[in-house]
């Protein structure tokens, strides 16, 4: 089942602005978390990006090939979603060495389900 992520143009421009330093000389992986609401109509399942929360300096570490959101960053955004009664979190991150195509890495595929399982468990 596929889920369509919809954003406002303003939110999308914020994502681009946050991600673009990754693709300059010496750029590192960058990432940002947001919260989304959910919409199901018939077979359509959409997630609407409600707000982005740029990480503070002490909430993220990264280099050219690695990005780590500290638990306190995920916690901050998770509490926002909980307090607003929203459906969940959106995690967006870059791969600076990607050129024409980009995909989730094996590392992403190994790690993210564990984070999702944890959020589901809380």
């Amino acid at each position, binding site marked *: 089942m596929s889920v369509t992520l919809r954003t406002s143009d303003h939110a999308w421009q914020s994502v681009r602005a946050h991600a673009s330093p990754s693709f300059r000389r010496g750029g590192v992986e960058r990432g940002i978390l947001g919260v989304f609401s959910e919409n199901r109509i018939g077979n359509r399942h959409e997630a609407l990006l409600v707000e982005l929360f740029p990480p503070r300096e002490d909430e993220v570490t990264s280099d050219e090939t690695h*990005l*780590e*959101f500290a638990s*306190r960053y995920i916690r901050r955004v998770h509490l926002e979603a909980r307090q607003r009664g929203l459906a969940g979190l959106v995690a967006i991150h870059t791969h600076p*060495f990607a050129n024409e195509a980009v995909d989730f*890495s094996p*590392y*992403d595929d190994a790690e993210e389900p564990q984070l999702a399982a944890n959020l589901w468990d*809380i």
Partner: protein
Amino acid sequence: MDSQVERQADRRESGHDIKLEVRRLPDGPDTTVGIERRDTLLDLLGRAATALDLELLPSIDEPLDTLHNLRPRERDELIQDLGQNVEDYLHAPHTTRDFGVRLERVLFVNKKARIAPEPSMTPRQILGLFGLDENFSLYRPDGNEPLPLDSEIPIERGMRLEAQRDGKYGGGAPVTAPLPKLQRELGELEALGHSARLIHHGGQRYVRIDGVPAPTPPWATSRHDILIALPNGYEQGAALDAFYLAQPSLYDGRKHRRVGNAGQPLTLEGQTWLLVSWHYKSAWRLPQDTLVTHVLHCRSFFTEAEA
């Protein structure tokens, strides 16, 4: 009431309710509950809790709170297999019609519940208790600051904490393999404050735990060293059972009747070890039962085993 009189009483009831005395342990009020013969001890625990106005945690269907059979002439028995039929249990030797409900120090982390072994623990120990590694931090519900890993916090029954994982991403980072089961569980024991060490001896693997606490009296010393034999295939699901106890170990001035009755004495690391016949009353369950839960089982020998 002796068992013959009890059986006569059962017959008089001719398939109807069995009346049992239940009390809140250690010294709470008592009352009488009626139960059907076909009911299980889990049903009895639930009915006793309702009659005593107690809430079982985490739920009445799968409680971590415990049911004990109270025996005036010997040590009370912690009932481990709550799936037993009440009538069958009452006909077993030494059982009485007096039962106790003990509310344990149940702690919740996310949706899981465990019994906290100590009245205060560090977040590192709590994470270890729940099998969570260094990728997690512990928070109060709706709290935004992680609890300092090594600062003890008092644990109250029913307390809820939330463990939040870090988020890791990478275009080129290597995939980290999960720690092997045994290594992970040794780490969890260490996080719980146990001195746990893997020993190879004569082709057999043991885990040595030093300083297991014991009440004095009846035990002559307050700390004991134990050895747990790991069967081949433990990592694939083989069960743990019993343990070895370093000698000398005196209970009421003599060797405990469950110590040294089976197996050969071991000589290892300059000490003599005797096998303790302290077995599970229900089957080893996966994935709940681990080396960590087995150490808790071994610890219970020093407080629960009858003389």
